C-alpha cells in the first residue's frame, strides 16, 4: 500500500467516524426525551385519564377526556382547511412552475413555514377571536391549519414534480385535457408521498401549544361546540405542568406521553399508507 493510498484510507475512516458520532449526538437527546416521557407518563396513565374530566384542585384523580377530544377536533378542522388549500396550491405550483405568480406563492409559503407559531396564533386571534369577542375551536383550527398549509404546499409540489413527464404525455396523447391528466394520472402517481406530507404536517401541528393559547384557549368542561373555547392536550399539559400540584404534574406527564404516542401513531400510519399505496402501484 502506498503512502498516498494509506493517507486516503485514514481520511475516509476519520470522516466516517465523525458522521457516526454526529448521529449518536443527535440521537441522545431524542432518546432521553422519549425515556423520560415514557417513564413519568406511562405510570400516570390509566383508564380514568381517557374517560374522566379534570377534577377541581385538591381532589385527586380525574382525566383529560375533554382535552383528548379537543385535540382531535382541532386537528380535524386544521386538516379540513389546510389539505384542500395546500394540495390545490401545490398542484398549481407544479403545473405552472415558471410564472411570476408561482415564484411569489412559493416564497410566501417558505416564509409562512418559518413564521413562529405564536405569531400565527396572534393572527388568528386578530381575525377570528377579537371581532366576535370569544375564543373558539374554529379560531384554533384555523391557526393550526395555517401552520399546516406551507408544509402541504411544498411537499405536494415537490412530489408532483417527481412524477415522470412521460405519464403526462401519455395522458394528453390519449385526448385528456390538462386538468384531467393532472387529476387522473399525475396526482394519483404522487399520492403516497402527498399523503405522507399531510400526515407529517398533522403530526407537527398536533403538538403545537402557542397558537392555541389565544385561539382555542382552554376549557375545563366537555365541549364540542365549534364556537366555544375547547381544551387541548398541549394547552392542558402546559397548564398542569406550571401548576404547583403534584397530582397535576403527574397528569401533565401522562398528557405528554399520550401526545408523543399520537404523533408516533400518525407517523406509523403514514408509513403504512405509503407502503400500501405503493404496493398497489407496483405489483
Amino acid at each position, binding site marked *: 500500500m502506498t503512502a498516498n493510498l494509506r493517507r486516503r484510507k485514514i481520511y475516509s475512516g476519520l470522516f466516517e467516524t465523525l458522521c457516526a458520532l454526529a448521529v449518536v449526538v443527535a440521537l441522545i437527546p431524542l432518546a432521553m426525551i422519549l425515556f423520560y416521557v415514557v417513564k413519568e407518563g406511562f405510570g400516570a396513565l390509566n383508564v380514568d385519564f381517557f374517560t374522566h374530566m379534570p377534577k377541581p384542585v385538591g381532589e385527586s384523580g380525574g382525566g383529560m377526556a375533554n382535552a383528548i377530544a379537543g385535540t382531535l377536533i382541532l386537528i380535524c378542522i386544521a386538516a379540513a382547511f389546510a389539505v384542500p388549500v395546500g394540495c390545490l396550491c401545490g398542484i398549481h405550483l407544479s403545473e405552472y412552475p415558471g410564472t411570476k405568480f408561482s415564484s411569489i406563492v412559493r416564497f410566501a409559503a417558505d416564509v409562512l413555514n418559518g413564521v413562529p407559531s405564536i405569531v400565527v396564533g396572534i393572527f388568528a386571534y386578530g381575525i377570528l377571536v377579537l371581532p366576535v369577542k370569544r375564543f373558539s375551536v374554529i379560531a384554533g383550527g384555523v391557526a393550526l391549519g395555517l401552520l399546516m398549509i406551507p408544509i402541504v404546499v411544498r411537499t405536494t409540489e415537490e412530489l408532483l414534480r417527481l412524477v415522470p413527464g*412521460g405519464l403526462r404525455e*401519455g395522458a*394528453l*396523447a*390519449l*385526448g385528456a385535457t390538462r386538468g384531467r391528466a393532472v387529476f387522473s394520472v399525475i396526482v394519483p402517481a404522487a399520492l403516497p408521498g402527498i399523503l405522507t406530507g399531510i400526515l407529517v404536517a398533522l403530526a407537527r401541528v398536533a403538538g403545537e401549544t402557542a397558537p392555541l393559547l389565544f385561539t382555542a384557549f382552554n376549557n375545563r368542561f366537555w365541549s364540542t361546540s365549534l364556537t366555544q373555547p375547547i381544551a387541548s392536550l398541549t394547552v392542558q399539559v402546559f397548564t398542569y405542568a406550571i401548576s404547583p400540584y403534584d397530582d397535576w404534574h403527574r397528569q401533565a406527564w401522562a398528557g405528554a406521553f399520550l401526545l408523543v404516542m399520537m404523533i408516533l401513531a400518525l407517523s406509523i400510519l403514514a408509513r403504512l399508507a405509503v407502503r400500501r399505496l405503493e404496493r398497489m402501484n*407496483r*405489483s
Partner: protein
Amino acid sequence: MTSSLTTDVTRESPSPPRFLAGEKVAKPDEGAALAQSEIKISVRDFDFFYGTAKVLHGISLEIPARKVTALIGPSGCGKSTFIRSINRMNDIITDARGKGTILIDGQDVYGGDTDVVELRRRVGMVFQKSNPFPKSIYDNVAYGLRIGGMRNKRQLDDIIERSLTRAALWHEVKDRLHASALALSGGQQQRLCIARALAVDPEILLMDEPASALDPIATSKIEELIYELKDNYTIVIVTHNMQQAARVSDRTAFFMLGRVVEYAETNTIFMNPKEKMTEDYVTGRFG
C-alpha cells in the same frame, strides 16, 4: 413465457425485407408519387422553433393512408420534433411553436377550429419510453375510453379485450387484468401502451422509436404488430434502426439537420437513393 420465447426465436422475421426477397422491383421514384386520395397527412412548408432556434426547415411531406411511413436520420435531426408536431404534443413545451401547415384529411392541425383534445384522440401516439400509468392493466386501456365518457362495463370489457388482442398482449395478461401495469416487462408495457392507444380507435398512430428500449425479441413482436396494424391505421414511425425501417415501412423519409433530404418508397431509399447523403447514411458511412 418460455413458450412464447421459443415461438419468437424460431419465427421468421415479421416482415421480410421485401426488396431483398425480390417481391417487388424497386420502382423509379417518379412512379412513387401518391394519388391525392391516398394522402392522409399532408405537410407543407412546416418550420418549427424552440425559442429562437429553428429546428425544422420547410418540411413538406405527403403521408399515405394505411401505410407505414418511417422517419430516419441521425440524432437531433428533428424526426421526433416533427412527429410530435402532428398531434401537437409540442404544445406543452413553452416557447415552442410551429409555422406552416399540417393537414390531416384536409383539416389544418394548427388551424383555429381544430380542438387539440379531439385531434389527439384521432392521432394516437406511442412513446420511446413506455409510459403505462400506475394503474391496473385494465384501467390503462380503459383510460382513453373513460375520458371519452364511456361508462358501460360490458362495452369497456369488449373494447379492452379487442385492443389487447390487437396489441398481441391479450393472452399474456387476460388472467391478471386488474394487476398493476408496472409489473409487466418492458416489452409488454410497450404493447400495453399500443393497446391503450388503439382502444380509442385513432386513425393515425405515431410511434416515436417504440422499440429502441426493448430487446430483440420484444422488438420483433412490436414490428410484427406494426405490420399487422397498417391494414387499419396510418402509421408514422421514427426509428434509429435502419433495418427496422427497411423491415416495417412502405415509405421512408430521411431527415438531416431539420430538413427532409429524401422521401420515397422504402425500397428506393435503401436500394437506389438519389441523394449521396441518403446513401451514405443508410449504408452506415455516417450517423
